[in-house]
């Protein structure tokens, strides 16, 4: 168990981040906090990819002329996550834009208050 924690702690971080993210999204009734939870959830996935790229004694993947110089850390997951981060930022922007619209229309960011307002509509 101790060994698992000391050698595989990055995966524990992934699990903890995913759990915190999902919990925040379900538990909080505030839309902004839900979006923060969503971001934490996605960060957990990013950490998972980056951890998967790790190689014991791996170096940054810059191949010298003539080749060799390995072992290298896998560059592929880093590139993927760079893309995923961009996607995540755009999603957050759209989500916050919608939150602003909801606040303009109903004057609340609280899910429970909002469903009462909508029921009265």
């Amino acid at each position, binding site marked *: 168990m101790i060994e698992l924690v000391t050698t595989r702690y990055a995966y524990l971080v992934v699990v903890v981040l995913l759990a915190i993210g999902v919990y925040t999204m379900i538990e909080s009734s505030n839309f902004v906090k839900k979006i923060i939870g969503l971001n934490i959830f*996605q960060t957990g996935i990013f950490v998972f990819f980056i951890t*998967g790229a790790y190689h014991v004694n791996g170096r940054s993947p810059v191949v010298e002329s003539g080749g060799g110089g390995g072992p290298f850390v896998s560059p592929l997951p880093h590139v993927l996550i760079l893309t995923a981060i961009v996607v995540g930022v755009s999603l957050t922007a759209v989500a916050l834009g*919608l939150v602003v*619209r*909801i606040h303009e229309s109903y004057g609340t960011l609280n899910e429970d208050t909002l469903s009462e307002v909508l029921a009265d509509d």
Partner: protein
Amino acid sequence: MTDTLVPLLVAGPLLGALLTVAAGLLDDRAPPVVAVLTLVGQVGLAGWMGSRALLDGPLSNGVGGFVAPYGIELVVDGVSAVIVSLVALVSLGVLFYAVDDDPGGTAFYTEYLLLVAGLSGMSVTGDVFNLYVFLEISGLATYALVASAGTGRSAVAALKYLLFGTVAASLYLLGVGYALVATGTLNMADLSVKLAQVGYDSPLVLASFGFIVVGLATKAALFPLHTWQPDAYNDAPDSVSAFISALVSTVAAYALFRLLYTVYTPAFFEAVPVARDALVVFATLSIVVGSVLAVVQSEVKRMLAYSSVSQYGLVVVGLAIGTPAAVFGAVVHLVGHAVMKGGLFVAAGTVDDLTGARTVDEYAGLADRFPVLGGASALLMLAMVGVPPAVGFAGKWYIALGAVRAGTWPVAVIIFGSTLLTLAYFTLLIERMFVAPASPSVRAATDGGERGLDRPDRPSRVALTLIVVAAVAAIALGLAVTNLQVALEPTLDTLLAT
């Protein structure tokens, strides 16, 4: 066969989206024109590529000159040819309705073309991570389109959709991550070989399968992951609900098909029968609950939305059973559902514009006042129930046939039972429209009473044409289904062979 023009299927609408912005700066009337021209081009390109893929075999292209499996590969095979042509045709049709019904600004048409680019990309990509990117592009465009109704309700529906959709896409990404860790590749064809080498019972492979299926099932709105869908369909502008109900979940279900049969392959189901059983149970549940929820709805758009939950259950059951007949039935039902549901949502939007009627009761007497509209809608509803010779019948027939051949009798019984439920909610609506005395809102539309003053007194020509075309297409597709079977046979045989 390599073909350098395949990326144009994605690049075309993407470029069109940019041109729309540029045109919008010059002239307010230009964006719809640019959008229509782009989609006409897209229909031509998709039709040309699709027919070549169906006749001469798959076309592929390594984007940017990076060869597969290292670069991103785009592939048009028989099934993606059908889906990409469907996306092009339906988006063009609905665009005419959008221009006619609630013309939006530059942003609306840009988002619309971005959505077409995302959906076309999902249809032709041969790379699992690229699929994630297109999933998110189409997701982002859809959220913005849903909110473009401008009401508070639509913003709430869009945010709910965004939260569900993002978690779904993230779960899919997590599944891709597990597959990447197990195999080190992202190319679909390469993955299918390497996953087999890793071993289908490896926890990594099983976890990736679970995450990917749950992620895509949420996007396709299967019960119990469907809760975002009725609000999104109900609160979006009429043209947008027609568009997304016809295409967005359809392409997500197609992506599930691609993953199940190109990446995991039938050999995975052979090795892990519990995965197939779980998928069958999950989808059957969706069929039953979706139908029951549709029966109890009073609002027509919501009823149509819950009906989709049940129809996608049907599609996924066909995919999970995995006999050639069932998989073919699933593809037919996917295409048929897109045409019929798109037409029905256009009809619901038109009725709302004419009379303000939104609930089943308010539809009473509609067919007397608007015979063509009522008749064509009734035809689409009966096609959806599965009355031969319409395409709804063909799809269900092949899926049920496949279920019987695979020996899963209970599924065939459930398909029959759900057809009765579908009949129940649609005949109720048809009875209202044709037999019941006119409701106040329909009467108001008839004699120009206080509710009818600011409303048009006849359905717009564009909307009426689209509904009639959808009804005719639903029947023509049903009659042409054997031709489609011949055309798709080589593709499905290759996919199901391993």
